[in-house]
């Protein structure tokens, strides 16, 4: 799937650039966006290391098990395959919390940790498990509790009530998450 999408995005893009006579765009993108990708990965290193260090502490202290236990009912409903007290539970919970509070890079670091834990439970290493698909769908559809960046833009643009979109955002996020969970549950049987 990703092979086809990747191929078509690039080829269609190049065809459009040719038709527009703006082939220089391609060179520009290759130079600038790849640099941006590397800078992003390097920028992520620090926050990644920080959270993996903290997670290690939480693992040794038993906090990971404790969080896993408390969140068990909810996790069990959405991710029935994850065993009780498995580190994946806590990584998922912390990723969702970080996401909710708009800590983007921390959320990414914790999300990657969660995926690594889920991969340990995977018997076919190159195929996504139901839990992985569900985790990604939940992760991608439930974002910030308070969309601070958008609030800031609205306030700067002179809105009379910048925060009025918080309620609508929560409803929309909630609906998209529920739609995601239901569609995953329906499609996950092989």
């Amino acid at each position: 799937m990703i092979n086809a999408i990747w191929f078509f995005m690039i080829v269609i893009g190049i065809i459009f650039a040719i038709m527009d006579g703006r082939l220089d765009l391609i060179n520009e993108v290759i130079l600038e966006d790849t640099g941006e990708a590397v800078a992003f990965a390097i920028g992520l290193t620090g926050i990644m290391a920080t959270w993996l260090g903290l997670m290690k502490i939480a693992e040794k202290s038993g906090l990971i098990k404790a969080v896993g236990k408390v969140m068990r009912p909810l996790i069990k409903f959405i991710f029935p395959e994850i065993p009780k007290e498995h580190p994946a539970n806590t990584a998922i919970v912390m990723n969702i919390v970080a996401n909710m509070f708009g800590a983007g890079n921390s959320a990414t670091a914790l999300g990657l940790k969660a995926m690594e834990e889920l991969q340990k439970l995977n018997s076919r290493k190159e195929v996504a498990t139901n839990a992985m698909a569900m985790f990604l769908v939940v992760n991608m559809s439930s974002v910030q509790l308070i969309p601070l960046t958008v609030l800031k833009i609205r306030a700067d643009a002179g809105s009379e009530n910048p925060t009025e979109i918080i309620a609508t955002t929560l409803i929309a996020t909630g609906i998209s998450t529920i739609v995601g969970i239901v569609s995953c549950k329906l499609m996950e049987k092989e």
Partner: protein
Amino acid sequence: MYRVFNVISLISIPLMITIILLHGYIKGVRLYDTFIEGASDGFKTALRIMPYLIAIFVAIGIFKESGALNMFSNLLLIPGRLIGLPREIIPLVMLKPISGSGSLAMVKDLIYSYGPDSLIGRIASTMMGSSETIFYTMAIYFGTIGVKKSRHTLICALIAHLGGVVASVVVCSIIFN
């Protein structure tokens, strides 16, 4: 209000860190050594995701900058009209699953062009907060752990995105009219 939310968001991460450290301290974990042990994995992960990031950034960059993205947006004109989606927002619907920073720039543009308190401004604001960038997240998360077959992940993520789009339009139309 904005201030209060800002404070809540600000303290969430320090709070998580404090709880982890405090719990570790009480349980007698060798905090510093354990932190270093875990942190050393951070570099491996960052290196591992780099090729995936580069691959996806190049594809997104070419697709977006060449104008292909805008052309594809036109495909959504008719289904968009059915749910009352203003046509000005359609490029955002297309861009959101592909690029987070790109769609933020587009939301900013929409808010400044049509006003933050217009229906377009409100729908765009709502939509921005209700879904995450799909292709990029999938590429990194699956790439890192070496999963090649993503099965139903993409289609379910797109369905959820669509659900968020429809919900944004409908909820804003109801609440703000």
